[in-house]
């Protein structure tokens, strides 16, 4: 199952009761968000609105369809903008 | 208070306008006459985006009153091109990519024209100091100076073959 790692500080940890790593059954980013929301209410929404995701190193922003493989490592990071 | 009547020459054309006494030449160009090439970047004479020539002299039009234009010869960026041919300065700015957003460009074109009329063979240092009154935030000045040196060469050649 894909492994999810929370990267950015304890603002997320408040929602997960301190946990920063967990396994989630999902093959797309969309399913991942729904699973996270179910497991930790509020987390899915935060992830969707304010975070980008790095799947096996590559950064995706706003991409429901981003594919997760069984051995994917997913890191949730703050959304990135620019100037 | 009644507006002032002014008669002047802008880019070779006799131009008459009415303006309030406190209106700057920049305000007059942009809001009364409709020549929006000169830009307001600071209204305090520090950025050069409003540069024009008054009787050949390089001037910040935001530091001059509209009424002061009476009887003078004013050149703005709109008067730099030679008919439907670009001036060598304009051509070199394009060739050297000496502009990015282009906002400081009108003021710079006029400032460079004034420089090369005064000194058609400036050193890099002379060019940089002459243009120190024209702020550019996009280019870091590198390509601008290259364009100036190249335009100077073209102008010297034109004079030599004239």
């Amino acid at each position, binding site marked *: 199952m894909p492994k999810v790692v929370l990267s950015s500080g304890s603002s997320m940890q408040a929602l997960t009761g301190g946990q920063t790593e967990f396994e989630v059954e999902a093959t797309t980013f969309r399913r991942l968000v729904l699973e996270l929301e179910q497991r930790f209410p509020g987390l899915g929404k935060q992830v969707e609105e304010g975070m980008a995701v790095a799947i096996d190193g590559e950064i995706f922003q706003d991409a429901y369809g981003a594919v997760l493989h069984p051995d994917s490592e997913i890191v949730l990071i703050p959304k*990135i903008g620019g100037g | 208070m009644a507006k002032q009547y002014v008669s002047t020459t802008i880019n070779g054309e006799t131009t008459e306008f009415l303006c309030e006494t406190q209106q700057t030449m920049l305000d007059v160009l*942009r809001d009364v006459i409709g020549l929006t090439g000169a830009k307001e970047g600071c209204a305090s004479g520090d950025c050069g985006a409003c540069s024009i020539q008054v009787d050949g002299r390089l001037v910040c039009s935001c530091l001059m009153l509209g009424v002061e234009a009476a009887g003078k010869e004013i050149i703005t960026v709109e008067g730099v091109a030679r008919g439907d041919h670009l001036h060598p300065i304009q051509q070199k700015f394009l060739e050297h990519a000496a502009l990015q957003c282009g906002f400081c460009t*009108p003021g710079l074109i006029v400032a460079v024209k004034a420089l090369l009329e005064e000194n058609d063979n400036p050193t890099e240092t002379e060019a940089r100091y002459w243009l120190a009154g024209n702020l550019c935030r996009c280019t870091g000045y590198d390509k601008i100076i290259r364009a100036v040196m190249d335009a100077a060469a073209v102008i010297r050649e034109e004079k030599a073959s004239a």
Partner: protein
Amino acid sequence: MNYIDSNLKVVGTRPLRPDGVDKVTGRAMYSADTRVAGMLWGKILRSPHAHARIVKIDTSKAEALKGVYAVCSAADFPDIPSEEAFVGEGPMNFRDLAMNVMARGKALYEGHAIAAVAASTPAIADEALALIDVTYEILPHVIDVEAAMAETAPLLHADMFTQGVDPKPTKPSNIAKVVKFKKGDIDAGFKDAEVIVEGRYTTQPVHQAYIEPHACLATCAADGQVTIHASSQGHFMIRAYTAKLLGMEMANIRVNPAEIGGGFGGKTLIYIEPVAVKLAQKSGKPVKIQMTREDVFRGTGPTSGAVVEVKLGAKKDGTIVAAQQVLKFQAGAFAGSPIGPGCMCGFALYDIENIDVLGYDVVSNRPKVAAYRAPGAPITSFGVESCLDDLALKLGIDPLTLRVKNAAKNGTKTHYGPTHANIGFEQVLAVAAAHPHWNAPLPAGQGRGIACGFWFNIGGESTATVHINEDGSVTVATGSPDIGGSRASMGMMVAEVLGVPAERVRATIADTASIGFTHLTGGSRVTFATGMAATQAAEKVVDELKKRAAMIWEITPDAVEWRDGQAFPAGTNAGAFEPLDLATLALKAARTGGPVNAEVSVNAQGAGAGFGAHICDVSVDKETGHVTIERYTAIQDVGKAIHPSYVEGQIQGGAAQGIGWALSEEYIYNDKGQMENPGFLDYRCPVASDVPMIEAVLVEVPNPRHPFGVRGVGEVPIVPPMAAIANAIRGATNLRMPNLPISPPRLRAAIDQAG
């Protein structure tokens, strides 16, 4: 399709930009250049106080003045509920944005908009502002970031409770958020270190200082349809934010993009559009608002000022085994400093096992900060790259060698999570090591410094349309405002795909009603994401053109080839047909199926990160403290330079802004919390005589996720300069200057003290 290894004919050359003639002749129309009949002039009254309760606003005398057609203040705008969103270029709360556009209840900084008027002339508008009577209850204010963090600091928001702290605090604070990133075991790392170096660095807020002040022209028709004419880094953003702040439907607002006179991140949000629209609605006339330069400095976001503490631990052989940072970023009056990227970018360049970063987003009574070119990264790298230099000195290792030894490579896991892939940092460092500048003997009395920088670069949503005109010429329309010459690159990519010269393609920027949604111009995304959409649209057009040729030749489309702007039969079996060029096919478009166009929308993923290394030689006048930049080289991995001149331009411009940040730019406050230098004379940006030629070295490491290999380039170049210069100054004077700007009085004082 992938063009990375192709033989390219247009991409990589240096044609004249298509909008260039307009810009050198004064014909190009910027935000303030448009006027319409019956137009009113809008002006904004700004708070003279850094922190005050607004007790009462009496606009009656202003309203009674002849020539005044409308007056407004916060009471005219809907009270927006707090709504967190990531919109544009950073975290945004719409309630905060609304309160920033027009103060509600409190003035939170000197320059905060309090009320506005619309009048028939600018002079009458100024008179009207002076007639607005505001009763303030002045409150204690706080400017400095660490002072704002103190327990006893004056509080800006009674409902601000620090996020990211467990358990949730019960007392409000000026600390909006705490952010942490960890990798490995920092304590073990430092125990293992044989050499430890520490530093405390401070930076001041600096403004993007685009030469074009914000301006807009708003018209409201009798049926409620609003048109806004304005420059910005995103006209779709103007539409969305204005609609939100006014409680309007987006469909009722149309935004026409004017040419933009610089942005650098500072125009990725709105300040005046909702005010202009409100005044237009109230007066029934078009309203133009044009900020003065003072308004821009006092009322729009600079970037954060900050305190950055860095601690590095290394083995004697130069391997960095522990890296720690504490960053305190001041966000201005509302939460939202770039503390996130600040925490991520400093160590992103290096492969370090044990990392610990702690960041604070802190409010204080200053203008709300806005994005500024790689927001957060220049500040954090000033600290990290200065400290690295001190580490190199202590270890007795060459600073470039130290960076090479610890450089991130493909496969290096960052401390904020993602693993680097397809990056060009090693290549950049190799080019630096071999560069004549690095190897040139240093003239006597001068100092040489090197520093590196990183930015993620983003992708995102873009739309592009390519049409073939009836004469076979081509137009590409996109929704991306052109700040730096991107129009040229759009045209070139389309020309390459179609196989025609760049001059045959016109590139335009379409308004919000005329093209599909496009995200902001920022984050170094346009050539990457909008270029991707334009390329794909051009490819679809080529497919369509092949179908048309096939119809004319009565063969199947797969028997048609497209090359150099013409359709050819693919091999002799297809038939002995003469090639059909664009002009011919365009003439027959109606008969073969209709107009030939394609529109493509993308949400581009796979943006490639950028790395830079800057080398700087300085000389220091010990009597005046003045620093002269003698030589400057900026090396960067740029993916594929579509138009190399404009890529060089981005690098040179970013470096120049960094030079100003390092040596002369800062907001100076008096003890009343008022800015003392809101003009270009005393807010000292680099002028032509301050800088030498800036050599931009393009290292092309293609990004495989873009058809041409494009990597964003605009932001990286502002990240290395401050440390490169500080390191050079150390080389010249033996003095570490950890506080920016390293202005003449400060350097002179340090020289005197040392000496």
